[in-house]
């Protein structure tokens, strides 16, 4: 019985199906808002779904120079990891009793796997541009993970626990993290880290269509490309939810709180989309300097403030 329940949680709600649908809808919001900023019309709401279905029906081409196994398995590994992160995060939010010790560490760890899977997939593709994209993805991963971990610690220091249950319980009892100085600083850093994690401009360096013609994605076609795109949609959903859980009191489907949940999520992705549309792409060295410079300093300040109780 337990196995069936876990399977349902992982595959239907709040796992794969739910995450994928909301993630794809979020990418539609991204495309629509971007289009409006550009004075374009933008696609209809079902466009990301139509794209996915269309890609699933297309021919899969494995380049002659590629290692087929690694090349094809990588996106699936990424998808499984992103789904798992989403499932754990939502279960902890909706049913706090399902939270376990250190699940925030697990989610943080699992959320790096989609990026790592892209590194593996791109390296296996044998394409020089793909390999360059993989190298950039790796540098970017090192760059943004450091401040991300430190700002996560600001919450952990305050709460005194790594589990989502305690973090959410603390926030509902003592007010959200965003109400404190350290929380606000951490939130700002988290938005930039989310931007990099979703490889959105100004940190879409690994893909950089006008430099690397797609970079890590360059050789993917058909169903694997659909999975890669789905991955990005899911990460665009999971990462803001993670930030909301850590700093903004979590998400809920109970009564009116469903409305605030949606508002919180839309607020975060709107900020991300606006950052995306008002900035050019930076170079990888500038990105690393940005995350290991100002962002690291800010996150350490936030951590010190949190330790001091602000």
């Amino acid at each position, binding site marked *: 019985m337990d196995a069936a329940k876990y399977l349902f949680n992982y595959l239907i709600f709040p796992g794969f199906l739910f995450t994928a649908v909301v993630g794809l809808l979020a990418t539609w919001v991204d495309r629509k808002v971007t289009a409006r900023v*550009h004075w374009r019309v933008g696609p209809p709401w079902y466009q990301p779904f139509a794209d996915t279905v269309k890609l699933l029906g297309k021919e899969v081409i494995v380049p002659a120079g590629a290692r087929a196994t690694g090349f094809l398995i990588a996106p699936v590994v990424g998808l499984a990891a992103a789904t798992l992160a989403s499932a754990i995060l939502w279960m902890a939010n909706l049913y706090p009793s399902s939270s376990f010790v250190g699940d925030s560490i697990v989610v943080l760890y699992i959320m790096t796997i989609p990026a790592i899977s892209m590194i593996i997939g791109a390296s296996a593709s044998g394409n020089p*541009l793909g390999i360059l994209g993989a190298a950039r993805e790796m540098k970017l991963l090192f760059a943004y993970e450091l401040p991300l971990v430190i700002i996560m610690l600001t919450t952990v220091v305050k709460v005194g626990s790594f589990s989502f249950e305690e973090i959410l319980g603390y926030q509902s009892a003592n007010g959200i993290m965003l109400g404190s100085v350290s929380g606000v600083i951490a939130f700002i850093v988290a938005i930039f880290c989310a931007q990099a994690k979703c490889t959105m401009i100004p940190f879409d360096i690994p893909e950089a269509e006008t430099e690397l013609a797609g970079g890590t994605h360059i050789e993917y076609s058909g169903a694997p490309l659909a999975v890669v795109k789905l991955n990005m949609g899911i990460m665009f959903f999971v990462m803001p939810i993670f930030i909301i859980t850590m700093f903004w009191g979590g998400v809920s489907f109970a009564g009116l709180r469903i409305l605030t949940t949606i508002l919180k999520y839309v607020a975060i992705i709107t900020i991300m989309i606006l950052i995306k549309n008002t900035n050019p792409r930076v170079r990888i060295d500038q990105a690393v300097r940005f995350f290991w410079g100002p962002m690291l300093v800010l996150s350490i300040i936030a951590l010190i403030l949190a330790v001091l109780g602000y």
Partner: protein
Amino acid sequence: MVKKIPIGPFHPVLEEPEFFELHVDGENVVDIDITIGWSHRGIELLSESKTWDQVPFLVERVCGICSCSHPYAYVKAVEDLLQVEVPKRAQFIRIIIAELERLHSHLLWTGLAGHFIGYNTVFMWCWKYREPLLDILEAVTGNRNHYAMMRIGGVRRDIPLEEYGNIRKMLDSLWEKNDLITNAIVDDPVIHARTKTVGIFNKDQCRLYGALGPTARAGGYDVDARRDHPIDAYGELDFDVIVCENGDVFDKAVVRQLENFEAIKIIRQCLDRLEEMGPMKDDSELCIEIGEIPPGEGIGVYEAPRGEVLHYIRSNGKNTPMRHKIRAPSFNNILTNEASVPGNTVADAGLITAAVDPCYSCTERVGRVDVNSGERYVLSEGDLIRLSAEKTEEIRRQLGK
């Protein structure tokens, strides 16, 4: 370890086929190979089979963006051969069309440059502001591009008096928009980080490579055919030649943006002069009668948006040019990448190659094919025909027919 990264022949950063092979060490570019010749069209030879009056329509198709500069240089070359002066009204109309073209070309480039650094908002906004300009060109000439206004001895049609107001209104709003874009570029710290000290091409290198147009002026090499070899009424007009110092991508963008203001000034002066002349009385104000083209040769030079374009024609008294030679500025400018790209990163390479505003189709005149398989060889036309025939044969065999 040095690896080779291809940019092209087909790449999102290139609107037309061109091949840059970057030799990279990690992210740093240490060397670049440039291979041109992917869209050879044989326009010079074609031109020798067209009558004198048909050639402007052909050279208009050399490039979709410089579709006024090439005919302008060509008709100046023929008029140089004939030693004739065109009517004043035609001179101003020519300059108006040519400067409108410079405006839309520079706006197009700024938008593309934004796209290349991933700033799609700049891309879309620039192109939106460019639309009214193209509408005006359509209202005045009948076409958004390929205006077909140039004609040996004058222009093909008058600009109606009632259009002057529309052109002025469009110029006023464009001045504001151009101001907005220029300030956005100059003030944005991220654009500074992406473009300053990137792809530097200095004055000495400009001389060495024969760089032209904004590429040269950004590097401090003060060259502008409109001022240096004034044609038509350019000598009577008041305008500045914009010159920067550093020669990086930022300066190339600034030069183009500031040149837009100069272009607007020039058009306003031309409109003033045309208004003084009043409405057109008869067709002789538009174009003088041209009879037979005598034997001889002529050179026409005009400052296209990308730099000086030169047309040389030779006549043997027949009704077609005997030789027509085109030297487009991109031919010089594309080669400047050899000096400006190495030392930068892969991320900048696409931007730098695009910063010369390359117009590949006007550059193509080499029938050589390089194959990137470690070895390089040259295929003759006969080889290509043979290879093509063999491939057809092979496909036929595979299909079992």
